[in-house]
């Protein structure tokens, strides 16, 4: 069984907190971004674009066996790295789990503490978008289940 969101968040936070200089943390994030599979070009549509980012960010969601599978991409390397973290945590979880999750972990990894407060890097917009999908699919599941 997949780890819970909370466990994954705790793992990520711990692994970042173990690194104590910013440069190594950034290098790690950039590496994670490089390892993220590219999103197929045909999915990089206007519809999938997350509004309110300095860099371009795309997010696609699909429900598979009751779990939300996300694909995402960005043209900026650091944002791609952050996306990789978000997908690791959220992709493959049920909508209900996502809705129940605490989303502050991204603040805790000591890399981007301030970024998520502003509209500057689209991270908060992306987290919001993930929650929207979870909300929407949660409703779908409840309706079809009833």
């Amino acid at each position: 069984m997949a780890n819970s969101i909370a466990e994954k968040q705790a793992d990520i936070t711990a692994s970042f907190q173990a690194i104590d200089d910013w440069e190594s943390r950034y290098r790690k994030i950039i590496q994670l971004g490089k390892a993220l599979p590219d999103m197929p070009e045909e999915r990089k549509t206007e519809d999938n674009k997350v509004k309110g980012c300095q860099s371009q960010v795309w997010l696609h969601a699909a429900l598979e066996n009751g779990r939300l599978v996300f694909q995402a991409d960005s043209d900026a390397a650091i944002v791609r790295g952050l996306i990789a973290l978000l997908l690791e945590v959220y992709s493959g979880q049920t909508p209900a789990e996502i809705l129940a999750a605490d989303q502050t972990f991204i603040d805790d990894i000591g890399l981007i503490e301030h970024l998520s407060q502003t509209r500057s890097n689209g991270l908060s917009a992306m987290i919001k978008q993930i929650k929207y999908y979870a909300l929407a699919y949660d409703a779908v599941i409840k309706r079809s289940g009833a």
Partner: protein
Amino acid sequence: MPVVPESLRDIRAQFPIFARTVHDQPLVYLDTAATSQKPARVIERLRKFYSDEYGTVRRGSYLLCQQSTAMFECARKKAASFVNAERPEEIVFLRGVTEAINLAAVSLARSILKPGDEVLVSAMEHHANIVPWQLVRDMAGIHIRVIPMNDKGELCLDAYEAMLSERVKVVALNHVANSLGTINPIKQITALAHGVGAIVLVDGAQSAPHLKIDVRDLDCDLYAVSGHKMYGPSGAGFLYGRYSLLERMAPYQGGGEMIDRVEFSESTFEDPPYRFEAGTPPIAEVIGLGEAIDFLHDIGLEAIEAWDQALLAYATARLSAIPGLRFVGEAEARSGLVAFTIDGMHPFDVASILDRKGVAVRAGHHCAQPVMRHFDVPATLRASFGVYTVPEDIDTLAAGLELARDMLS
């Protein structure tokens, strides 16, 4: 003489201006309705921001900008909670009430108003809630109709009800009238307006510094506030707007940060509130306004409201004793000020003499010429209160009025 309550006991010491004199007299500041003095913490907040923290807001990828943005957005949360909005995105920052009403008038004219629609304003409005509607009238083909008032300075609610129809799209009026002190029954007015589907815009310039505002309880759609009258810096205020209404409203000013995409042929716009905040906002002033809101919360709005009523009662009693003095504005429910004339004396002369005694009051039409015509006076004297006002200020005013009478008759 009413006793200053515990929570306001040391307030005066927090306002550096009272350390100065005016014409060698202690300053008796009774023009808070025009603009309030500033507490040290607001002045210090500005100094600190400009000295250690200054940066522009939104979209910068560097720390100063991110922190400024966080502080600016935090002020939005404070403003939202100050009026009990549902969410921070219901707060649009701008210069003050004048700009807020101009924004509302132009934006509604561009998006919602149709030729033949009616906008109701009250007979006791400040020019800021009359002229903006006149400026869009011809462009939008709308009619402006006036809700009458009685000779105590109270709205005629029967007449108001009779004026309501499907044609009425906006009811725009002040919560407290700056020339009379009247508190209008906004909740009742809103309920009636909503009965015909009209939008209610409240000019909160005079209420925000004195009353506890609850836009959800009032159920109004737009509520405008000037920060400089509620102990904040000049240059910043806000417009509360019900989010579902803001979403329907067209942009007002065009420029940076309010757009999504710009082509020379056409542009698309951001969601509210950013759609309405074109260009670099008054950054420090908004953050200072946030501090002023904290200042008011720390005192407690109930205490402020109660003290205002105590001062009003004291001033009314004290000034009644002055021969020839007539109050202009004698509504049952009042706040913040007394306005009056004195037989045979021009308000300007009286104010000039009071100034020499250190007393700052306003003489004039208070940007409410229609009110002056209603009461058939060219001008009135107005003494208005703030959190720093003490009963002794009223005594000094009364003594000054006696002197003026002696000098002018």
